[in-house]
């Protein structure tokens, strides 16, 4: 099925013979993901190096009491809320798989439903993140407050930016699906989007484990 979709791909940049038989877009996406691994690895490493080195609070897992902090501050990370948003993002990967599968078998109805569902779940995750960021700022943690604030907001902010780009990609695919319909020959383009989406999801699993769960 997938190979038939490849063979009939009308995606413009690679309509010809390829050495591996694979679609060039897909190879480029894999190269991009390899690069992104080093990008997020650098961000996560910096977060971990700076863990516990902040001079003033709030801190992620520990309370901060006077005289270190002007007022008593609770640990700032809200594990139950973030667990919920993590679950939402994981479910979006399932929706993505179902969307791809619907496009491959030419199911016009479910391709739209699952693409919309993936984008919706991704947006929900972003909503959670917006709530989290706002409440942290209210509790006294800004990007300029301490090392934790800087490394936390930049790391999760860049992840959020990646999710945003993915939601835009999904909505573009959905728009095309509504306008002219995604045929099995378009499956490769949905496949590329899915690879990216799953990657962003996997990065979040790493962030959730290393930043939120490990004290």
């Amino acid at each position, binding site marked *: 099925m997938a190979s038939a979709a490849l063979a009939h791909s009308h995606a413009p*940049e690679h309509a010809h013979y390829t050495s591996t038989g694979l679609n060039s877009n897909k190879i480029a996406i894999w190269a991009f993901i390899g690069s992104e691994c080093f990008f997020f690895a650098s961000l996560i490493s910096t977060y971990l190096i700076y863990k516990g080195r902040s001079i003033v609070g709030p801190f992620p897992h520990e309370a901060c009491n006077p005289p270190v902090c002007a007022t008593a501050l609770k640990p700032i990370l809200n594990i139950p809320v973030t667990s919920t948003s993590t679950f939402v993002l994981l479910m979006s990967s399932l929706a993505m798989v179902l969307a791809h599968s619907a496009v491959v078998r030419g199911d016009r109805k479910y391709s739209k439903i699952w693409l919309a569902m993936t984008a919706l779940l991704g947006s929900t995750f972003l909503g959670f993140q917006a709530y989290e960021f706002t409440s942290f700022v209210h509790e006294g943690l800004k*990007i300029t407050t301490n090392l934790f604030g800087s490394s936390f907001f930049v790391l999760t902010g860049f992840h959020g930016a990646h999710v945003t780009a993915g939601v835009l990609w999904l909505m573009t695919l959905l728009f095309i699906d509504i306008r002219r319909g995604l045929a099995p020959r378009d499956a490769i383009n949905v496949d590329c989007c899915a690879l990216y989406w799953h990657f962003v999801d996997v990065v979040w699993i790493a962030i959730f484990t290393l930043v939120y769960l490990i004290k």
Partner: protein
Amino acid sequence: MATTVAAPRHAVGPARYESGIWSWLATTDHKRIGQLYLYTALAWFLIGGFEAEIIRTQLYGPNGRLVSFETYNQLFTMHGTTMIFMVVMPLSAAFFNYLIPLQIGARDVAFPRLNAFSYWVFLAGSLFMNVSWLFRAAPDAGWFGYAPLTTPPYAPGPNIDFWLIGLQILGLSSLAAGFNFLTTIINLRAPGMNLMRMPIFTWMSFVTQFLLVLAFPIITVAVTFLMFDRFFGTNFYEVAAGADPLLWQHLFWLFGHPEVYILILPAFGLVSEVLPVFSRKPLFGYPVMVYSGILIAFLGFGVWAHHMFAVGMGPIADSIFSITTMLIGIPTGVKIFNWLGTMWGGSLRFTTAMKFGIALVGLFTIGGISGVMHSSPPSDLQQTDSYFIVAHFHYVLFGGSLMGLFAGLYFFYPKITGRLMDERLGSWHFWLTFIGMNLTFFPMHFLGLDGMPRRIASYDANQGWDMNNHIATIGAYILGAATLIFFYNWFRSMRRGPVAGNDPWGAATLEWTISSPPPVYNFATVPTVTSRYPLWDMKSAQPAAAPRPAQPAGRVPTAEELGIPMPTPTVKPFVAALGLTIAFTGLISHKNLPILFLGAATFVATLYSWLLTPLEPEH
């Protein structure tokens, strides 16, 4: 720019490129983009070289006062940044662009429009950084931009803003090109060209793309932290907030050392193409050359902290990085011996390209040996931040990368222009470069061991440094003269040089089977490859009839006549790069949000329009 690279007048058939500036803005042809990279990099080479001449003039004698100390800081920073990011890397990119599709038997790269985008982004980034000169605010913290020295308390002016945003833009260009060439080499090889039949230049380029794609995200993160520190007040490099003063150094060199191999491996690849042809022998130990290139790249990610022995990382870290650094000398040494093995017993022809190639083997070895010297921490502590280091990296970067790139320029000039470069002027260029280079950089070893520090704008008399500085400056002037001869030769030969024909050197690889310059579609029929040396096979199959494939009689047919679909020219990559630059300009000009959003909106809108338009006309 566009006018200087017009096709030579002798070109067979009708003008294969439509002319005019528009055709260059809208081109997606890898050969034209390669030439854009080439001429842009050569222009920056003149500017970066001019900066070096001012530096050397200032240092000619003690107490030099040609330029102020502030200007001197800007000069050495921009000299290093220019030569690395705007000369050696884009010259390599010029060869990637021009040669990789020809060497693997493809009609273009995998993503021609992304390729054009990479070039325009590179041009924008290099201009962005150099515009700072007009504001008398050129970057002044060294090409490595050590934070916390580059954080606002120590660098309040806009100098560093120009540097970090310029670097960010240049990084985007390299990343986009990296994805493109990786895909091209993996996926667009002609039938029969398995990996171990790939020309060695393509192999080394392939390895380089992995380094680019994996090393640049690290510097992107390091520079992003610095951007946030400078623009939004974060604390990544704020030592008072508890930040680690070594964070930047680790991130920078984790990128910076692979970057060193990004600079040298393409030159190694070029020389590995040149030496066999002028020795009339296949490359000695081709598989070992490939494996040692891969090993160099792999080990290249594990040696970064040898740039930091002096910061006191402790004996364990020092020992580990010392050992990995010594290890990386082994595959490099293997390459040197393989080049010697290639020449051994060959029938050597000392063309200019060959002379530059042999010079790389010798001079890089000197730089490599001084490199092994400071792989030992106790020895490094004597040498670090002294002119010994300056001598070392100029032997590997000038003696290595640039010599290799010059070899490549002389070797591929006839393929690019259709004419041969003048060998007599070439010989002058080579010998003056060789003598000038050694006069400039060899005395720096002694200066370093005599205690002269790097990056000082002036020095007192009576320290025993005068004579060696005199010699180095005279050498630099000789290098300047040699470079002028090179440029004269380049443009003169474009009009007066003898017509080259398809294969002037008796080479072995696919690019020499087609006309010079190649037709826009490269190969009328995609070749089938059965060995590493397809053209030598063709020659030995019909030795009497055609010792060399003849210049095709008459004109080369156009793509339309052959029914080969060609990409539609488009300015969208140019507009997208422009949008990106406008957005970054908004960031530097006091976070001017309207300009930022205007640029970002232009970029996103153009990107959509580009991605939703097919590459070729619908058929």
